[in-house]
Structure formats: C-alpha cells, structure tokens
C-alpha cells in the first residue's frame, strides 16, 4: 500500500502481507481452539490487533509463524476459552478419566496392534470432530505441532509451559485421538471387529469408556 510516507507504514504493510499469507492457517487453528466459526473469526481479529500493537517486538527474518501462533494461543488461553467447568461438560471428559484411560497397559496393547490404514479412509470432518473433542490442553498442542508444524520449544512458549509438558500433552493427546479415531473406524465398518482377539478387546474397552461418560 502507501509505503511512500514512512518506514512505519512500510512496517504495517509488511505485517499485513505476512498475516495475509498465514490467515487460512490462523483461522484453521482458531476454529479448532474455539470450535465455533464466529468465535474463531473474533479470535483471529483480536490476534491481528495484538500483532499490530506489538509489531515492534517481531524481528524481521525470525520465525513469524512461531510469533503469530504464540499470540493466537495466548489470546485464546487468556480470553476466549470457556470457564473450566463449562469446558469439562462440553468436552465430556475430565483429565482424571483421560489418565485412567491412558494406563500403560492400554498403550502397550495399542503399540502392539497390527498397523491398519484406517486413518486414510476417514472423512476429514470426522477427523476434525475427533480433534475438537479433545480436552483443551491436549487440543492446543496437537494443533500447534501436528497441523501447524511448530517446534516443541515454540509450542512451549505459546502455551507458557515447559517443553516436558508439551511432550507429555502431545503424547496423551495423540493417544486419545488414536483411540477415538479407531472407534470411529470400527463404527463405520472401516475396521472389522472380531477379526482378531485384540481388536475385539479394544472395542469393548472403548464402549465401556464411552458409556461411562454418557451416563
């Protein structure tokens, strides 16, 4: 735009170009965070306002993606997420439940299950819905790592937690997601149940898990 006037305006132009390049990704992450289109739009708008206000803190040539996703995540965590209790109800699962479900025994069986290409056959909307059903602390790190491709260190800054926390949340988030997606594949007949003992056991486990939270 009108960069003739001043270096300040040029800096605004540069920021707009960068934001423009990342807007789809920012909105995508905001949609996963808020799980609501209009709240996602508001979150991105607030993020851009903050980026404009703090634009002098961004050093050109450094990792813009890490910078802008940190602002997005801070803005979400400090202003957009729902109250804790409300979140738990919405998400239908509490951390204790997750911890129980993720006993090392369950993981071990998961690890030894034969690899099946069911993930490729799921609809994108179903995959995203499964991601959206993750409790917030797992959802944010999975979005930042698996979708946006940020490093552990950058994620640690974005969620203001140590790298160890990032790694354990990622691990647990991915395991819950795997479990949910496998259940979905079974429901849709993509994975046949009863094909072998291990699969059947796992489906029983999952159903028990789901009953516990719907009741």
């Amino acid at each position, binding site marked *: *735009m*009108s960069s003739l*006037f*001043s270096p*300040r*305006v040029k800096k*605004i*132009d540069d*920021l*707009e170009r960068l*934001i*423009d390049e990342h*807007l*789809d990704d*920012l*909105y*995508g992450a905001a*949609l*996963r965070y808020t799980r609501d*289109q209009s709240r996602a*739009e508001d979150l*991105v*708008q607030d993020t*851009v*306002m903050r980026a*404009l206000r703090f634009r002098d803190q961004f050093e050109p040539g450094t990792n813009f993606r890490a910078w802008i996703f940190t602002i997005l995540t801070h803005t979400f965590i400090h202003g957009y997420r729902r109250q804790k209790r409300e979140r738990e109800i919405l998400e239908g699962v509490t951390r204790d439940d997750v911890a129980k479900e993720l006993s090392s025994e369950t993981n071990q069986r998961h*690890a*030894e299950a*034969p*690899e099946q*290409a069911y*993930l*490729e056959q*799921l609809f*994108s*909307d179903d*995959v*995203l819905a499964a*991601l959206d059903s993750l409790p917030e602390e797992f959802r944010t790190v*999975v979005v930042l*790592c*698996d*979708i946006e491709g940020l*490093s*552990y260190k950058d994620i640690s800054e974005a969620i203001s937690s140590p790298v160890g926390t990032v*790694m354990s949340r*990622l*691990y647990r988030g*991915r395991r819950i*997601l*795997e479990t949910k*997606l496998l259940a979905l594949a079974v429901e849709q007949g993509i994975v046949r149940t009863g094909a072998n003992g291990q699969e059947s056991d796992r489906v029983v486990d999952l159903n028990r898990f789901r009953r516990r939270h719907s009741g």
Partner: protein
Amino acid sequence: MAGYLQDCEAARSAIAFLLDDELDAEQAIELEAHLDQCPACRALAEREGQLRLALRRASKDVRAPSSLRRRVHQLFEDERRVHTRWHRWVPSLAAAAILLTFLWAGSHSTSPQAVYEAAVHRANNLPFDVVAANVGELQSFFRDKLPFPVRLPQLGSVPVMRLGGRVTNLGSRDVAYVRYELSDGRLSFFVYDDPNPEISESGAFYRLGGQHVYLQHVHGYTIARWHNSGVLYSVVTDLPDDEFSSVLFH
C-alpha cells in the same frame, strides 16, 4: 549414548521425536537404521506418521472466510491511516513552528512565500484534542499534561466561536497548541518552555496591555511573541493589527 536407539523400547519412545523433527541428525540416522531392521517398530512409526498426516490432510482445506479477510484488511487500513496522518502532521507542525521562529529572527528572504503560507495555514488548522467552553477549562486540560503552566488570555469584548487545543511536539519539546476561532479570523497559540528567552527576543517591540510583546508582519499574517514566567507564547493570526491588539491586549 551411541547405539541406544537400537533397543526397541528406546526406539519407540523416540519415534514421535523423529516425526516431529526434534531429533538431532545423528539420533535421527540411528533411529532410521533401527526402523529399517525392525518391522514392529517400523509399523508403529508408520501409524504415528499416519495420525499426523490425517490431521494435516483434514485441515488443509480450511479457508478463512471472506468476512474475516475484510475485517483484517480494515484493521490494517485503520492503522495506516493513523500513521499516515500522524506522519503528515508532525513535520508540517514542526515546519510551522520552526518557520515562525526562523522568520521571527528576521531572515524571511530565504523562505518561499508558498511554503510559509502552507505552514501558517497548517498552524491555523490543526485538529483539536479537546474543545473547551472557556479558557479555564482549556488551562486545566493542559495542567496535568505539561510540565509548565499555560496561561491563556481572555479575549476582550469579542465572542469566541470555538476554542480548542492539543498537546503536540516541537522536536523533543511538548507544546501546547491553542486556537481561538473568531467570526473574522483565528488566533493560534504555540506555548512552550523557552530556556533561552533572549534568542527569540528580537523584532519590533511593543508594550501592549502591560505586556512586552514582539510583533512581526509576514505575508499578511501577524506573529506575536511574549514571555511569561519562562514560558514562550507564540501567536500567529490573520486578524488585522488593530483588532488583534484590542482583543488580546485589552
């Protein structure tokens, strides 16, 4: 530690780090070597990879709605407007004040009339931060914003249509800008701390209403200056001289 990733348990715990690109080159090569030889670990790595692929694939078609693009673009437009305006005003205001000082020193010959007039025009038309009902209100507006007192004259017998002001800068100095708008002209004040009053005390000296005032006429405008308690008052006006002195120094 070399070779520890050859162990299945260690290898499995590192698969996620490999896929997340968090291993250094040496570790990555070592783990890849293990995966090449161990079908069980390889299958696990592939499944881990598939989960990430599924998430990326599912997200890649999400597009920001055009309403959001418009909102974001508007934010940048607004920000640019603020800075463009700011950028335009600062030099012209500084130019106005510097020109006034410069002309005051008596070297009018070097400044082109058009530039001078543009500067004076700007000085006479700066936007207000505050519009005040009376002089007292305006003085208290400046009180907590400036480190020096701003004492504004009450105009005698002439109705003021509009009175307002703003704090602005001249170089690093804070300056009070005040404008009285009368039915037939304007009086624009620049008020600031003046550590060297003798420099600006040149020109034609008058004693008006008990005040020592220096006056100068340039290109149809009158510039007046005086000091009060170490503060310089510099006024530019398009009012005729007799009216100017009667309203200001009654």
